[in-house]
């Protein structure tokens, strides 16, 4: 292999890894938008909560109480982050979003997501302080080499987790009664109600799935973030860009856009320097908004989820 080719493949591999991290976060955003027609500004904080839940599960519980090896503790922490995200989503929907939706107002639930975001950030700030936590994944230390291409075991874990999440989500939507009902609610909430489907239950389920994905995303992102109570915010900006580039509410578009942004980011680091990442991503976003405002995959909204 020539040096150039090696470099291209190496950066593409790095890009896919980054892209998978973003996809884990962006999928939830797009899912909530697709079903509720609402932007969730608190999504970033579900990522942060997931990251901290994973950190404490791995360091305080997995290794110390259960006596697991570091790798086992990290895998366990991913499960804990999934659970923490799901539970938090369930609780916040029941306490805040559902009662506001009941009143039939569209703006208030949206503003409430900002309120929930501020609340979660400050609660974590009070509990954990502003100093960044160190969260190492044991899989980051293990390097795998194929020919002249290098990657860590962590990146394999991330890609596998993202692939599993995507396959599980598609299988759920396509083959289960509840998944089909969820698509029905996304397409026409009132008519879904006329079918005997309780739309509120499916909306709750959507929020739980999205939050669980964000939680796992947090566990996977923890080792690469500067882990403070505001850590999620650094990823969410990019996740929003991905969701818009992919077409709001469109799962397939979000996945493609996530991988695309990851790869573009890897090459930006290589050729332009890491300081320009956000610039490049947001120039891409602006170009998309001008050239193709419906997103990569332009379908009618109801066909997305």
């Amino acid at each position: 292999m020539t040096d150039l080719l090696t470099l291209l493949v190496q950066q593409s591999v790095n890009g896919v890894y980054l892209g998978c991290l973003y996809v884990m976060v962006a999928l939830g955003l797009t899912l909530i938008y697709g079903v509720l027609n609402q932007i969730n500004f608190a999504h970033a904080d579900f990522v942060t909560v997931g990251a901290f839940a994973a950190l404490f599960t791995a360091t305080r519980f997995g290794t110390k109480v259960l006596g697991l090896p570091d790798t086992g503790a990290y895998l366990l922490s991913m499960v804990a982050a999934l659970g923490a995200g799901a539970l938090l989503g369930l609780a916040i929907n029941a306490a805040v979003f559902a009662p506001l939706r009941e009143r039939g107002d569209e703006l208030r639930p949206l503003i409430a997501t900002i309120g929930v975001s501020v609340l979660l950030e400050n609660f974590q700030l009070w509990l954990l302080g502003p100093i960044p936590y160190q969260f190492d994944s044991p899989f980051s230390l293990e390097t795998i080499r194929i020919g002249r291409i290098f990657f860590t075991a962590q990146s394999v874990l991330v890609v596998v987790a993202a692939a599993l999440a995507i396959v599980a989500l598609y299988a759920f939507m396509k083959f289960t009664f509840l998944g089909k009902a969820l698509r029905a609610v996304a397409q026409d909430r009132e008519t879904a109600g006329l079918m005997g489907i309780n739309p509120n239950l499916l909306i709750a389920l959507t929020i739980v799935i999205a939050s669980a994905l964000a939680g796992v995303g947090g566990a996977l992102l923890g080792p690469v973030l500067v882990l403070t109570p505001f850590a999620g915010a650094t990823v969410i900006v990019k996740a929003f860009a991905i969701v818009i580039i992919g077409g709001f509410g469109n799962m397939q578009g979000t996945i493609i856009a996530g991988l695309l942004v990851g790869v573009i980011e890897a090459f930006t680091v290589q050729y332009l320097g890491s300081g320009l990442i956000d610039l490049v991503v947001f120039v891409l976003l602006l170009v998309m908004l001008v050239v193709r405002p419906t997103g990569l995959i332009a379908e009618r909204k109801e066909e997305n989820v």
Partner: protein
Amino acid sequence: MSVLLQVENLELAYGEVPVCRDLSFQVEEGEIVTLIGANGAGKSTTMRAVAGAMLPRRGRIIFDGQEVTQLPAHRRLLAGIALVPEGRRVFPALTVRENLEMGGFKFRGERQKLDAQMARMLEMFPLLRERAAQPAGTLSGGEQQMLALSRALMSAPRLLCMDEPSLGLAPLVVQDIFQSIRAANAAGTSILLVEQNARYALDTASRGYVMQTGAIIASGPCAILKQDGRVKEAYLGRR
């Protein structure tokens, strides 16, 4: 015959805008009853209130002896009321089969019952069998109306509410639809029919109510309504 649906002094409004006042009517077990009236008379709103898609300001809705006035739509379906909404409202990105499955959502735990209902519907509407794997959004208007009707019948309702089934469809297709409505009735489903085409409606139903600007102005057996001067003049064309 016993009363299946009893609507008493219903008052309906969108926000502050009143649509219907003091509506009372009933559907007896096994009947086809029609609400006719001009555009904007409040027929569709009344149907939505019966199916639970909107809650009334005042009045009572009693179904099969139980008060359902405040029940949301998904609970009314469980009670036995199904609505074929105006404009059909099939789920465009779901396949025909998936649309039917949604209609039978209440049987999701009883696979055999669901399969039996599905088989019945595909037999009743062979065209849907051919299109089973196609997204519903790709069907023609008439096919979508067939799908919306069979989707509602999937739940084996005791009362089927049909809102403007003929809207935007060719006369031949409309005849097919009304044929199917009569077939569903013959199989034991009571029917409440809202229809702009008064001639079709009065030919199909046994009793009717005439609505004008949110109130019922006449009612009776269809044979008599057809002779009513006001009905003739307003809805059947002068003769």
